[in-house]
């Protein structure tokens, strides 16, 4: 294709110009996203007195002080809260991924009556907000004396329609039925096939969903707040919300920033380490065959 020289140069200049604009916007967005993190970290390094003096962009030296104060605070037991959150989030994510893979496998491999209906049902319930069942859920747990207990927070994660859907999509692209057949021929029973052969193939999908469900569980505030009111069982979000209701003027602001930092730190670390596989995994389920 012949283009006059001036057209070509004009086109290239326009392209470079556009690129500059786009990169500027991207950098701007990144700064926006990171700014509040940065502020928070900076403020967590300052003492209460320093914070009252105003705004600065440079870190000061009180990081360890604030850390010790926040960690040992008597009314808000952050270490305990983090442990609680960890127990709940970890169990939750393991159960969710395993049983969702199990369910998706059942729908993918076996042909049984009502299969289409069941799958449509799973998709349908994806859209129901959790608040609708919240009231009945709380009532039920109260009647069953399961409040202040982690069971109602962990067991329901076995039924996670979104994850099932994702796993099913993933299976459609990586799990041809021949593999199952050959496993059967080799004498493996159904459970063995699932656990020993299919699960390893599903590793990327499982990893991604574990991260997502861990984060969702860690950050969950609505349901745990309804179930738990004993101090030593509280999870991190509940404690942070408590912080907000506490008396403000008496508060050591440096400690407050440190609390917030501690609350979100575990998730940030996990995310930064695994971000590449998360991004890969999000699109993994959507490419068909």
């Amino acid at each position, binding site marked *: 294709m012949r283009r006059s020289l001036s057209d070509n140069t004009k086109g290239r200049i326009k392209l470079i110009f556009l690129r500059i604009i786009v990169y500027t916007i991207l950098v701007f967005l990144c700064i926006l996203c990171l700014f509040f993190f940065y502020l928070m970290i900076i403020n967590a390094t300052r003492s209460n007195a320093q914070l009252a003096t105003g705004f600065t962009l440079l870190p000061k030296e009180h990081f360890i002080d604030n850390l010790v104060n926040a960690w040992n605070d008597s009314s808000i037991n952050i270490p305990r809260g983090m442990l609680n959150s960890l127990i709940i989030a970890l169990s939750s994510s393991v159960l969710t991924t395993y049983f969702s893979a199990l369910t998706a496998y*059942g729908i993918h491999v076996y042909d049984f009556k009502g299969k289409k209906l069941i799958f449509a049902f799973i998709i349908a319930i994806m859209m129901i907000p959790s608040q609708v069942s919240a009231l009945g859920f709380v*009532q039920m747990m109260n009647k069953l004396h399961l409040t202040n207990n982690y069971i109602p927070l962990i067991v329901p994660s076995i039924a996670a329609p979104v994850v099932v859907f994702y796993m099913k999509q993933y299976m459609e692209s990586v799990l041809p039925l021949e593999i199952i057949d050959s496993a059967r021929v080799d004498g493996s029973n159904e459970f063995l096939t699932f656990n020993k052969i299919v699960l390893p193939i599903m590793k990327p999908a499982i990893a991604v969903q574990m991260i997502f469900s861990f984060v969702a569980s860690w950050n969950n505030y609505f349901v745990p707040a*309804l179930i738990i009111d004993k101090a030593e069982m509280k999870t991190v979000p509940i404690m942070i919300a408590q912080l907000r209701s506490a008396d403000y003027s008496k508060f050591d602001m440096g400690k407050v920033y440190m609390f917030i930092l501690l609350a*979100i730190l575990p998730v940030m670390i996990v995310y930064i380490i695994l971000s590449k596989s998360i991004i890969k995994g999000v699109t993994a389920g959507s490419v068909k065959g």
Partner: protein
Amino acid sequence: MKNPKPLKLRRSKISYAKWGYIFVAPFFLVYIVFSLVPQFLTIYNSFFENYRDGLQQIGPNFVGLENYKTLFTPTSDGEILVLKYALNTLILWILGAVPQFVIALLLAIFFTSYRLNIKGQGFFKTVIYMPNLIMAAAFSMLFFTLFSRVGPIQALLTSWGVIDQSFDFFSFKITFPLLLPIFAYCLITALIGGIQMFDVPQVLTKGNGVPNGTTRTMVMYLNNYLTNKDYGMGGAISVIIFIITAVLSGIVYKMLTKQYKDPARKRRERKGNVL
């Protein structure tokens, strides 16, 4: 020669069908016990009055649609609270979702445009996704602290300028109509998510929706009833939230199933060539 039997039939000499049921059983068991039953309980509850008045437990007495009537009765100031909170939810949602969409669309264009060929996409994607991970409660707490009287924002009194960029991608005119179905889908999914807005306003305003109830969303309203163990009214508002969501979900579902019918398939369907 006879047509060979389809693969499915040949395999099913031994029927593995029952395994299908076994594998999906845990999901359904847990779902029925922990989600389905509570949902029905919620709806059931909405028809009863059931709350505490001081030390007395009133109810549960069957009152039919009384709770719903109460929800829609104006207060002494003449405002219908549930409509006010629904409006709040809508406003908060618009303020949040519209910029979100614009930026998301923009980013999608940036990252998929071959002509632009943006480097460092991994880095950008990682950083821009990060705020998503923050616990909403912690995030609101952070904002509250930063914007409070003794916070840095008061000290920093500048406002972020609005950057006004107009792009004239000739290809944009073509891609945008194609994006419309997905756009609408995202819109409604975000709407459904927006209805559930709870964590941020709750923590930011300590559950009070100050000033003057303008930031109280519908789920916060629900939470109020739940903490006061007023199961009757709580049930009613839950049902209303559910109805709104159901309508929106119905629309999303229609859009989802419409998407897969591309014109070629439609032509084949009409000719009867589709398997």
